[in-house]
Each structure stands twice: as structure tokens, then as C-alpha cells.
């Protein structure tokens, strides 16, 4: 599914009232398309571009929060939540414990975890710390350590701001500062409409990267390596990530729309993690975790 058709399914209407967005100092935009349709505004836009303030350019945790909420709302439009209380409660305790030992333990509203009712093998993390795993992904986890590895990998994506890094390449923050500085006086209605459309395209960019195309191989490698670090800090075994990937390899369907499409192959990930772990972490089952894991996963 390409980005535009995904967006049409997810979003209806022409988008926000751009003038109200501008008054609030908000606007995402693709500079090249906006400037192409508004050449008479090039001079003032260039001036603003050059005069970008750091305060407006930086995406603060508060803004990450609102970006992440919208992406979460779109994920939850596409997937049904699996609202089985014992499972959700367990995953939240495990996930929030892991997040405390990441290098980004504090987010505007903290980390929150949810299971999606889908047999696909998938997991998503929004910039605001909303983390989703499917039932199909949970089935790749044979114990608590493996599940911890999955959650740690998603926390790592949030820690490294992988989602936001794909936005900033489109210079959205620079467009934000232009709109906030210039206000409404220099923009015609046609430009406002065009900028409104590009806002929705930008949200679509984030969600299609996350859901359809996936992050770069280097981002995925970084997330795996940080996941191992988080696991070890909490007292879990880095080997748990390898064990999960072995099960995933058996369960993934070739040509699937899930992890098969968005992530490097389990084999390549296993090889990389094995090199990091060396012979340090031997797999040892922890019986005190077994019962609570099995109880929480009953029925999944």
C-alpha cells in the first residue's frame, strides 16, 4: 500500500483550518511545494528560513506528545485493541520497568503499552512513547525474557527518536518556524490549503514509514543493540532477543505486510546480536517469571 492510499483510508476531509493553525504558531510543510506555488512569497520565506529560531525549530517533548497521540490514534483506527486486562496490565508493568532503564526514561506523558488484536507479527512505537505489539508478535515470545526483548526494542526506537528523525528530513520544523514568525499576512488561501494538505501528508509519512516501509537497517540495528543494553541493565538476558527472533523466523510468512516487510531478516539480526553478546549471556530459564508470563499470555 503506498503512502497516499494509506492516508486516504486513514483520513477524511480537507484537513485543518490552516489560518487557525497559523495563529497558534503551527504548521507542517514541504517547503519546496509551498514555495513553488507561492513564488511571490519567496523573499519573506527565505528570510524566515534563515532566521529560524532554535526554540521553534526544536521539537519539544510536549510536541512529541501531540505528534505521537495522532499517530497512535491512526494505528488504533487501523488495528483493533486487544483489551484483555491481565495481559495489558502485565505488559505495562514489564514495559514501564524496562523504560526506566533506557537512556530516555522520561517522556512528556511517559510510556504506555497496548496489544493489538491481529495475527500479523508487528510492533509500533510512536514518538510520544505509545507502544503497540500484536498478538502475532506475542506468539513469537516463549517466555518473559523474549517479550522483554520485544518491548526493549520498541523503547529503543523511542529513545533514539527514529520516528521523529524521518520527519525532520522533510524540514517540517523549519516550515513550522516560518509560519509562526510570518503569521497569516503573507499567505494566500491557496497556499494555506496546500500547506494543510502537506500536514496530512507528513503525518502519513510517519505512519507509512512505521507501518509499511520500516526504518533503515542502521536504525533497526541500533534498536537491537540498545534493546540488549536495556535488557542487561534490568537483569534480563540479551539472549532473549535471539530466542524471540528464532521463533519469529519460523512464524513469518514470506511476502507478508508485517515484520517481514519492515525489518531486516531475523537471520541477519541474530548474527549481529550474537556478535555483540559473544559468549557472555548463556540462556537460563527463570522459573519465577514463568508462571506470571503464562498467566498473562493465556488466550492470546
Amino acid at each position: 500500500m503506498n503512502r497516499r492510499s494509506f492516508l486516504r483510508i486513514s483520513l477524511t476531509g480537507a484537513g485543518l483550518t490552516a489560518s487557525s493553525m497559523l495563529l497558534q504558531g503551527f504548521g507542517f510543510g514541504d517547503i519546496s511545494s509551498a514555495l513553488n506555488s507561492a513564488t511571490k512569497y519567496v523573499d519573506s520565506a527565505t528570510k524566515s528560513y534563515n532566521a529560524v529560531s532554535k526554540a521553534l525549530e526544536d521539537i519539544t517533548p510536549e510536541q512529541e506528545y501531540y505528534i505521537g497521540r495522532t499517530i497512535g490514534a491512526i494505528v488504533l483506527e487501523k488495528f483493533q485493541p486487544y483489551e484483555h486486562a491481565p495481559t495489558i496490565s502485565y505488559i505495562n508493568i514489564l514495559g514501564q520497568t524496562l523504560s526506566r532503564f533506557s537512556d530516555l526514561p522520561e517522556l512528556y506523558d511517559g510510556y504506555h503499552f497496548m496489544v493489538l488484536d491481529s495475527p500479523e507479527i508487528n510492533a509500533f512505537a510512536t514518538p510520544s512513547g505509545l507502544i503497540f505489539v500484536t498478538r502475532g508478535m506475542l506468539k513469537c515470545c516463549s517466555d518473559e525474557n523474549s517479550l522483554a526483548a520485544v518491548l526493549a526494542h520498541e523503547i529503543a526506537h523511542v529513545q533514539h527518536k527514529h520516528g521523529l528523525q524521518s520527519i525532520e528530513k522533510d524540514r517540517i520544523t523549519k516550515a513550522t518556524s516560518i509560519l509562526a514568525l510570518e503569521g497569516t499576512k503573507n499567505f494566500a488561501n491557496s497556499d494555506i490549503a496546500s500547506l494543510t494538505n502537506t500536514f496530512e501528508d507528513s503525518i502519513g509519512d510517519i505512519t507509512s514509514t512505521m507501518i509499511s516501509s520500516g526504518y533503515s537497517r542502521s536504525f533497526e540495528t541500533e534498536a537491537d543493540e540498545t534493546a540488549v543494553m536495556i535488557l542487561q541493565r534490568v537483569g534480563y538476558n540479551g539472549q532473549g532477543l535471539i530466542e524471540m527472533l528464532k521463533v519469529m523466523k519460523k512464524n513469518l510468512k514470506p511476502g507478508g505486510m508485517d515484520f517481514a516487510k519492515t525489518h531486516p531478516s531475523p537471520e541477519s539480526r541474530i548474527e549481529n546480536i550474537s556478535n555483540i553478546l559473544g559468549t557472555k549471556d548463556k540462556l537460563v530459564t527463570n522459573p519465577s517469571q514463568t508462571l506470571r508470563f503464562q498467566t498473562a499470555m493465556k488466550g492470546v
Partner: protein
Amino acid sequence: MTTSQSVQVRSSQLRKSPSFLGKIISTVHYGDRLAVLETKDSWLKVDARGNQGWLHSSAMTAKEIVLKPHAGDISKAADSDEIALAGKGFNRQVEKKFRQRNANANFNMVDKMEKSSVSQEEIEAFLRAGNLHPTGGEV
């Protein structure tokens, strides 16, 4: 000369030691400007209204957060690296308008997800019951 930093998350807990297993002393809130007394690894020892304790640096920013910015604050922020405006850019009002135009986006479930919270006691019990021994602190 002491430096100050501001709380950039909704709320956080001041702790007796630089660890999430450290005893909680008090709560700090978004925008609170706190004097920084000491740093250790990724943690800051701060003074919050007479209480001294530790916060993780990810909860803090060197910028001063202006909680209710006026129009004049926008150009002030434009000229300074030291100020951040609360509620600027993508904010609650923008989300409200987005929801009016995109009725199918499931914000109600996002609100529900955000209600999940886990206490310090629950985390400590979870670690103990699971025979887990984190680095940097015994449970």
C-alpha cells in the same frame, strides 16, 4: 554560580538517590524552574522549593519554559536559544481540529491507553518476584 533547568515533562518525581529505584521525595511539574546543585551520569541533583533530590536529565531542559506565552513571546523566543514556549506548534487545539476533520482516528483509545500507570512499588515488587537484579540499585 548555580545553573537552573526546567521540567519539560508533565510531572516527575524527585528521588533520594540517582536511580529510578531511589526513594521518592516529592513531585515536580511542567515548567518548574529548579536550581541544579550537582550532576552524576545522566542525573541532576536539584533544589525544588527547599527539597533536594535527583531527577533524570531527560525530564529537564536548560531552556526556560514560558507556560502561557503571549504574542510578544514568539519574537522573544525567535531571538533566543534559552526559551521554549509551552503549547506552541502542534498542541491540544490543533489536535481538536484534526479530530473534527478525521472522525475515525481513535483518540478515545489513546486516552484510555494513557491512563495506564505503574507505581514505584509495583515495579519493585515485579523485579523482586521475577528474581531480577538491575544494575545501579538493589531492590
